[in-house]
């Protein structure tokens, strides 16, 4: 979503993005003229008249599980976004029975919060697990 019209979205997709992604962008490219939606999400810069690089993870109940907002010159890390979605999906599937510690990615150990884990995380998780 950006403040550009859907006509500009089409031109961008036709003339540039389709040269990067075969068949063009598959998902909806939304138009937020005037930044009305961006204001509600806190990403609209009134002075510049544009929206920051905001990214919101919304779960199947419509609940915001996480967000990240960057100023324009720095691009996002798509892998990190997918990792967070996978982590939130695991938590949801286990109905909160499992939690994903720092550095978790699919295949890595999860933690099972409960009385026995209090004060014992050091037995289950070491700082090197925070890194790839």
């Amino acid at each position, binding site marked *: *979503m*950006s*403040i*550009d*019209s*859907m*006509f*500009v*979205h*089409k*031109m*961008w*997709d036709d003339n*540039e993005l389709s040269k990067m992604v075969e*068949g*063009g*962008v*598959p*998902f*909806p*490219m*939304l*138009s*937020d*003229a*005037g930044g*009305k*939606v*961006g*204001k*509600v*999400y*806190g*990403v609209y810069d009134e002075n*510049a008249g*544009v*929206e*920051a*690089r*905001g*990214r*919101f*993870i*919304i*779960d*199947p*109940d*419509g*609940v*915001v*599980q*996480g*967000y990240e907002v960057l100023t*324009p*010159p720095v*691009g996002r890390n798509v892998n990190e*976004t997918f990792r967070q*979605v996978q982590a*939130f*999906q695991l938590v949801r599937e286990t109905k909160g029975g499992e939690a994903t510690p720092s550095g978790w990615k699919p295949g890595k150990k999860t933690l099972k919060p409960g009385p026995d884990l209090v004060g014992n995380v050091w037995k289950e998780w070491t700082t090197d697990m925070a890194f790839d």
Partner: protein
Amino acid sequence: MAEESAVGCARPTGGPVGEEPQEAASEKKETIQEVRSMIVVGQKAPDFVAPGYQQGKFINLKLSDYLGKWVLLCFYPGDFTFV
């Protein structure tokens, strides 16, 4: 999901859904400030409708039509910006 829309020369726009009507212009700024703090993790994402473009079609999309799915909502400064 997103519905295809007919397009004329007017530039279509969308906006938040279910927002309270704003009473006076002088209160407007204050209202926006309050609205800005609405995004809290663990709470509902504000619903909205927006026009857009997808795979050769102009569409109209409502966020709440995607209930039951995981959604990544991304904002960016503008088309043809570089990163």
